[in-house]
């Protein structure tokens, strides 16, 4: 008799979601986390005394509202702070774009740049919303895989067909057409203002190795609208207390259902017994056995480090090695003495800087930024997504001071002719100097800076090649191709070993969905076994 019904490797948000749902169904569950705190990349860390950073992921707007309600996260301390404005996109010519949360105000702001675009904006948002909603519907459908060869039945097909037809003919075709497109091509069909197009295209390249002119980025754009979205822009939000509060709330919910969580407990190996997983060994040598082992670590790490390769077929191993997870995102976290003063914010920084600050004024700029990464270079003029959550949530920094979180792209994991120990500070300087161009005097307000290059994300947060999404969200790595063809339903070739991280369907972002669907699948499987 095993000590636990299920052991979950990694207390990231997906691991915690899976654990909670399993415990809720009566399973005796243990979660093992390598780091001293739970959360994975959804953590709040006090890097500098008094300054609390969402060190890695910084926005949580797409976290599944279904899970929030199901697990009663609000009563466990989770509070989502809606962004307003959604977005501020400064440009060097002083012509900034501000998109307030209110729909009509947003159209009016866009109208300052282009009347034509303002007229089309509502229709575009409505379309994007419908398409991403259908995408989310598709995510919920069980995919065929090796472990469930006959699951793709006619009834399921008819159900999808029915839901698809509810889009209406025009949007049905748009869905099929837009999904493989490039974000730039799609937006060019709608809008004329480059700043607006670049701002909207940004979510198409988040975590992506390619620029907005490349195919598949329109899919990525729609993927990032999932959750409580108004369509065109991620109606994202901060978590009060930093994104770590989401993980804390999940941990509390988990514990309420009896989940045991151990931090500082690094898993060294997954133990297998005649082809089936039967437990794990910790770094300190301790062995814990369980009926099922569920890994929320990234797929490459799981199979190339934690599992003895002799248990895996060469074809499967090759598939795992071929997963593209080229990290291109770096995080720069800055403790600030004062709010930066952007040249183009008309002196109204507290209002303008409350949401996402987007640096990347044209489509060409974003495309060029990604070009550098192709040749293994740090982007000379990177695309930045900046947030200053302490405006909405002053508890994150001492009075009057602020925390700034910068998501910087493209910083390739594999640098050619150099390495990150040499380039880390170059990256930091480049980011700071770039912001300085938009907000003169900004440099002098920096009290502390933390740089997390892809290499650091790998060593500190165990993300292979520093990829936040455990694998690129490219057209050949989604749906039934994620994590690898044939294994899209959280099963693995090793019996009783499952996956539940971002590397699985439906993929990256702080959504909780992979964890949720994995739990559903695991529970279904168990009831079938009985």
């Amino acid at each position: 008799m095993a000590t636990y019904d299920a052991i979950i490797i990694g207390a990231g948000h997906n691991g915690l979601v899976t654990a909670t749902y399993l415990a809720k169904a009566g399973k005796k569950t243990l979660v093992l986390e390598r780091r001293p705190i739970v959360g994975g990349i959804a953590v709040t860390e006090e890097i500098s005394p008094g300054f609390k950073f969402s060190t890695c992921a910084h926005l949580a707007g797409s976290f599944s509202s279904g899970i929030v309600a199901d697990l009663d996260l609000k009563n466990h301390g989770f509070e989502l702070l809606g962004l307003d404005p959604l977005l501020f996109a400064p440009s060097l010519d002083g012509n900034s774009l501000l998109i307030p949360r209110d729909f009509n105000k947003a159209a009016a702001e866009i109208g300052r740049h282009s009347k034509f675009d303002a007229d089309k904006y509502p229709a575009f948002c409505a379309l994007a919303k419908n398409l991403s909603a259908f995408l989310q519907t598709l995510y919920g459908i069980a995919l065929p895989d090796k472990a469930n060869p006959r699951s793709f039945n006619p009834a399921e097909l008819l159900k999808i067909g029915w839901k698809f037809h509810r889009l209406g003919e025009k949007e049905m075709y748009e869905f099929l057409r837009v999904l493989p497109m490039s974000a730039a091509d799609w937006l060019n069909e709608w809008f004329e203002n480059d700043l607006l197009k670049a701002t909207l295209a940004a979510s198409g390249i988040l975590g992506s190795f390619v620029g907005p002119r490349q195919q598949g980025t329109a899919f990525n754009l729609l993927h990032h609208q999932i959750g409580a979205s108004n369509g065109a822009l991620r109606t994202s939000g901060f978590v009060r207390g930093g994104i770590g509060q989401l993980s804390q709330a999940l941990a509390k919910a988990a514990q309420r259902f009896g989940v045991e969580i151990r931090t500082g407990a690094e898993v060294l190996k997954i133990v297998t017994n005649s082809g089936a997983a039967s437990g794990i060994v910790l770094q300190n040598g301790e062995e814990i056995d369980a009926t099922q082992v569920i890994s929320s670590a990234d797929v490459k790490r799981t199979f190339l480090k934690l599992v003895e390769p002799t248990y895996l077929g060469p074809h499967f191993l090759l598939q795992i090695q071929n997963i593209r997870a080229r990290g291109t995102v770096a995080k720069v976290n800055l403790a600030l003495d004062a709010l930066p003063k952007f040249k183009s914010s008309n002196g109204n920084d507290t209002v303008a800087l409350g949401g996402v600050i987007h640096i990347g004024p044209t489509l060409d700029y974003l495309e060029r930024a990604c070009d550098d990464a192709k040749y293994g270079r740090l982007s000379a003029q990177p695309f930045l997504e900046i947030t200053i959550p302490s405006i909405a949530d002053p508890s994150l920094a001492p009075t009057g001071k602020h925390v700034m979180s910068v998501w910087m792209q493209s910083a390739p994991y594999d640098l050619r002719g150099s390495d990150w120990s040499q380039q880390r500070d170059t990256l930091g300087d480049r980011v700071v100097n770039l912001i300085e161009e938009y907000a003169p005097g900004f440099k002098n307000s920096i009290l502390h800076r933390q740089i997390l290059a892809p290499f650091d994300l790998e060593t500190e947060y165990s993300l292979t090649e520093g990829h936040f999404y455990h694998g690129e969200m490219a057209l050949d790595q989604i749906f039934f191709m994620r994590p690898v063809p044939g294994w899209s339903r959280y099963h693995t070739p090793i019996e009783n070993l499952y996956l539940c991280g971002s590397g699985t369907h439906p993929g990256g972002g702080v959504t909780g969905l992979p964890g949720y669907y994995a739990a559903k699948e695991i529970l279904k499987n168990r009831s079938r076994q009985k």
Partner: protein
Amino acid sequence: MPNYDAIIIGAGHNGLTSAAYLAKAGKKVLVLERRHVLGGAAVTEEIYPGFKYSVCSYVVSLLRPEVIRDLELPKYDLEIIPLDSTFTPMPDGNYLFRCGDHARTRREIARHSVPDAEAYEEYGQLMVQMAMAVKPLLGMIPPEPTTWNPKDLFGLARVGNHFRGLGEKLLYDLTKLMTMSSADFLDEWFETNVLKATMSASGIIGTFMGPRSPGTAYVLLHHYMGELDGAFRSWGFARGGMGSISRVIAEAARHHAAEIRTQAPVDQVLIKSGRACGVVLASGEEIQSKVVVSGVDPKRTFLKMVDGRHLDTEFTKQVSNFKIRGSSAKVNLALDALPNFTSMPGDGPHLAGAVSISPSLDYIERAYDDAKYGDYSRRPYMDIILPSMLDPSMAPPGKHVMSIFVQYAPYHLKNGTWPEKREALGDAVIETLSEYAPNLKNIILHRQVVTPWDLEQEFGLTEGNIFQGELTLDQLFFLRPVPGWAKYRTPIKNLYMCGACTHPGGGVMAASGRLAALEILKDMKLRLI
């Protein structure tokens, strides 16, 4: 009473194919061509005395076997000479030479990498399997995915069933191939950069994408499709130049009594009460017919030849959104002698095949980067053949013609216009090529540079796109040319499309022309016309 059953606009190979099929079915057909020669982009012209250029298209690989059979093309003296080697010179004096001789190619690849030589075999087998899996789709009318119409649902089920029947592994590989970049796809197989670069190059021809752009992998398949039909090799050259292909299809059409008029540019499609009923030529002449079939691209057809008031704005918008960015140019040279490549000096079999200037993936990707921001590639990717090596009649004795396909040359230049930049592009091509064949500059007798702008002006290809519309996933199958109109019909009754802008797309395949004709005949039989 109309004088004709069908008028075909444009005597390109697709237009001629449609005409031949319709004429063969007993219809009275008239083909109208704007230029003085037949063939559209598949033409042979003697631009410089004694030297025959295949001005635009220069190789044939995918000409559909059923077209050859149905129209009995061999009867009209069509000969395709196989081009079975690819020679890639490298700047360091090394080279890669792949040819029809299996053992030799294997040894040659092993010279670069032993594992690659092993993988090459398996890769080739997989590609042939996948090409066979895709082929049936090229010959079918795309079903509409958005209706509950039983016929379309049946069609979709057929497509679904076809794919399911392929088996799990092939299906997954095919999905990867359809969505990945050729560089990523080849990275999974090979390690030799020059091999990957040369193979990936076939994935970017005619596209506005680089080898690292997702969506370029599936074009790799095209290289393997032709090989399946016994009689035809992967890539071939038509004796007498590409114009020969147009000539034989035209002869087949004429044999069935189709009429073909050159120098007869169509100005407008005549439309009465929502139905096409003929055309007006630029000369003002009106010709009546029961149906009008456009072999030209949709932008030219609907935005120029059809009066906008006959179209709803949604359709017009879709046509405007059709991506048709030209990205390639042609340079044709008359040579006094053979080029001498540093890495493989002298005359030899390497000059009888394709010469590819694609030394590394980064090289091609950089060429693409130039084009992305509106400039032609300073050091372009080139696919070169010397037709006179295969067919001596193309040039005077001892002399040669060289056909250079150049990428990238974007239609929209950021600075300047193509008439200003045309020769600069020619110079960049010659400069780059001279690095590999230093004697080139001294042997050029004549040079013709065909930019995307020239392709538009002279050959009527909007934006100079050689496929009449980019071959990207969002513009394929039931989405080509525009969603809802993939079955060769248009919102205007009796107006049909038969060019490369329709399924299955570009390349000298003649598939679009055939499928369009079959659909028209179906409608005629049902007396819808």
